[in-house]
C-alpha cells in the first residue's frame, strides 16, 4: 500500500483527494452542490415561468396548494413557487459564491500581511480583524442594506448585498491566514528561501500562501453556506431587493401568507436547508481530507 502512494504522488492534494473520495457524507454534499449549481446554470431553461412572473394568476390558479401543474404550489399573488425557487437558486448561489470569493481574497491578503509584518501594522490589522469578529454583524448588515438601498437607485440589488456581506465577512479567513502565516514564518523552509535571496513579498506569495491554501479552502466553502443563510435572513426581513427572486424573498412572502399558504414557507425553506447542508457537508469533508488530525 505504501508503494502505491509513492507511485501516484503523495502531495497534500492527491492524498486529500483520495480521502475525500472515500468520505460518504462529503460525496453526498458535493453531489448536492453540483445539483444546485446545475439548476442555477439551467434556470432560464428549466423554470416554467420567468422570474417574478404572475402568469398563474391569469390562469386562475393563484393561491393553489401543490398540484401536478404547480408542484410546489402558487402564491396568492400568482407567483409559482417551483419556478421562483429555481430562479432563486441562481441568485442565492451567486450571492454565496461571489461573497465567499471576495472575502477570501480580502481575507488572505490582509491576513497574510497581518501575520507577516510585525509591529504597528500587524497589531492594527489584528485589532480590526477582532473587531469585525465580535460585532453583531447581522444588525449592521441589515442597517447598511436598508440605508444604501434607500440612497442608491434600485437595480443594484444583489450586488449590493454581496458587497455588504463581503465588507463584514472577511474576518474569519483573515484570522486563520494570519495564524498560519505566523506559524509558517518561523519554519525552516522560509529561512532557507531567505538565505537564497528571496525578498519579503516573494516569500509571502510564492512560499507562504500556497501552504495556507488548505484551511482557507475549507473555510471559504463553509462561508458559502453562511453567506447564503445570511442572504436568506436579510431578504426574509424585507431588507433585500424586492425585484430579485431569492429564497429569502419567497420566505418573506410566505410569512405573510403563513396561515393559509404553508407551501410558500415550506419548500423554499427546504431548498435552503438542502443547499446549505450540501456546502456544509462538502466543507467538512474537505476539512477531514486535508487535516488528518482526527483520524489515524
Amino acid at each position, binding site marked *: 500500500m505504501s508503494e502505491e502512494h509513492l507511485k501516484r504522488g503523495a502531495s497534500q492534494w492527491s492524498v486529500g483527494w483520495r480521502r475525500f473520495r472515500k468520505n460518504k457524507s462529503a460525496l453526498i454534499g458535493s453531489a448536492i452542490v453540483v445539483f444546485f449549481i446545475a439548476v442555477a446554470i439551467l434556470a432560464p431553461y428549466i423554470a416554467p415561468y420567468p422570474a417574478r412572473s404572475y402568469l398563474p394568476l391569469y390562469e386562475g390558479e393563484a393561491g393553489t396548494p401543490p398540484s401536478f401543474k404547480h408542484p410546489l404550489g402558487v402564491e396568492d399573488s400568482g407567483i409559482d413557487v417551483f419556478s421562483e425557487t429555481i430562479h432563486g437558486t441562481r441568485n442565492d448561489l451567486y450571492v454565496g459564491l461571489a461573497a465567499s470569493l471576495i472575502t477570501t481574497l480580502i481575507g488572505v491578503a490582509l491576513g497574510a500581511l497581518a501575520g507577516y509584518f510585525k509591529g504597528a501594522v500587524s497589531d492594527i490589522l489584528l485589532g480590526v480583524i477582532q473587531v469585525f469578529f*465580535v460585532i*453583531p454583524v*447581522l444588525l*449592521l448588515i441589515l442597517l447598511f442594506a436598508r440605508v*444604501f438601498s434607500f440612497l442608491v437607485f434600485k437595480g443594484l440589488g444583489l450586488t449590493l448585498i454581496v458587497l455588504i456581506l463581503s465588507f463584514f465577512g472577511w474576518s474569519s479567513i483573515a484570522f486563520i491566514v494570519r495564524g498560519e502565516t505566523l506559524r509558517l514564518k518561523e519554519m525552516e523552509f522560509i529561512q532557507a528561501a531567505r538565505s537564497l535571496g528571496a525578498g519579503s513579498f516573494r516569500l509571502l506569495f510564492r512560499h507562504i500562501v500556497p501552504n495556507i491554501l488548505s484551511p482557507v479552502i475549507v473555510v471559504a466553502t463553509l462561508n458559502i453556506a453562511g453567506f447564503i*443563510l445570511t442572504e436568506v*435572513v436579510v431578504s*426574509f426581513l424585507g431588507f433585500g431587493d424586492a425585484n430579485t427572486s431569492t429564497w429569502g424573498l419567497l420566505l418573506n412572502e410566505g410569512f405573510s401568507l403563513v396561515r393559509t399558504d404553508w407551501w410558500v414557507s415550506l419548500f423554499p425553506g427546504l431548498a435552503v436547508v438542502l443547499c446549505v447542508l450540501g456546502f456544509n457537508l462538502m466543507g467538512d469533508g474537505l476539512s477531514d481530507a486535508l487535516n488528518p488530525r482526527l483520524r*489515524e
Partner: protein
Amino acid sequence: MASLIRYIIRRLLFMIPVFLGVAILTYGVGNAAGSPLNLIRVGLRNPNPAVLEALTHYYHLDQPVWQRFLYWLWDLMHGNLGVSISGRPVASQIGPWALSTLELQVLALILSIVIGIPVGVYSSKHQYSKMDYAITTTAIFGYSMPTFWLGIMLVIIFSFNLGLLPGSGAVSVSYYWWGNPLLDQIAHLILPTLVLTYVNLATIVRLVRANMLEVMRQDYILAARASGLSERTVTYRYALRNAVSPVVTIIGLGFGAALGGAPALETTFSWPGLGYAFTQAALTLDIPLVQGITIVITLMVLVAILITDLTYALLDPRVTIG
C-alpha cells in the same frame, strides 16, 4: 490570581476599541441615511422654521460630523440614547425589549449547554456507533437551516394546525393559555426556545464531540488511565476540562451571533424583543432607535464575551500568560 486579573484587564481594554468601532460604524451609516432634519421634515410636513432651528441646535447639525459623533457618544455615556422619530426617548423603550430578548436567549443558551455537553461527550465515546451517526446528522441539519424557518414550520404545525401552543407574542392579550399568567408565559416560551436551543445545540454538540475525540487521544489521558483512575474520572475530570475550553469561546461568539439572529427569530414569533424592534426601526429608518438598539446589543455581546473569557481562563490557566 494576579495573572488572571491582568488578563481580565487586557480583555476589557480590548473591548473599548471594539465598542468604538461599532459606534463609529453605526453612527456613520445612520448619518449617511440623511440628516435627521430631512427625515423629520418628511414626517412633519411643513414645520415652523423656529422648530427647525431648535431641532438643528438640538442635534448640533450646524457642526461637522465628527463633532456630532462625539456629542452622541457623550450622551451615550450618560445613558441618553437619543429620541426616536416617534418622539419617545429610546432609552425608556429599550428596557422591556432587552428583557424579553434576554429571557429567550439566555434560557436557550443554558438549555443548549446543559444538554449539549453530555450529548457531545456521549457521542465521542461511542464514535461510529449508530447513535453517534444519528446525533451528528441531526446536528448538521441543525446548523444548516435558517433558525427562523424552523420556527415557522413549528408554528404551522403546532400552533395553526394542532392548536397546542401559541404561535406569537410573549404573553397573550385576551386570555391565558393553560390557565394562569405564569403558565401562559411558559406556553409562549416553548416554541421559540425550542427552536433556538436546537440550533445552538447543533454547534455545541459538534464542537464538544470533536474536541473530546482529540483530547482523548492525548498522552495525559493515557497516563491518567495508567495511574488507575476510573474511566468516569478520566472522561469527566481530566478530558472534559481540556475539551470544553474552546467550546466556551465559541459559545461567547455564538451568543453574539444569536443576538444578531434575533431580528429574524423574533419577527417570526412576534416576540417583543430588541430584534423585533430593530427590524421595525430599520425599516422605518428610525435612526436614533436603530443606533440605540445596536449599541445595547453590542454591549450585551461584549459582556457575554467577557464572561466567556473569564470562564475560559478559569478552565485553562495557560491562557493568562503573555
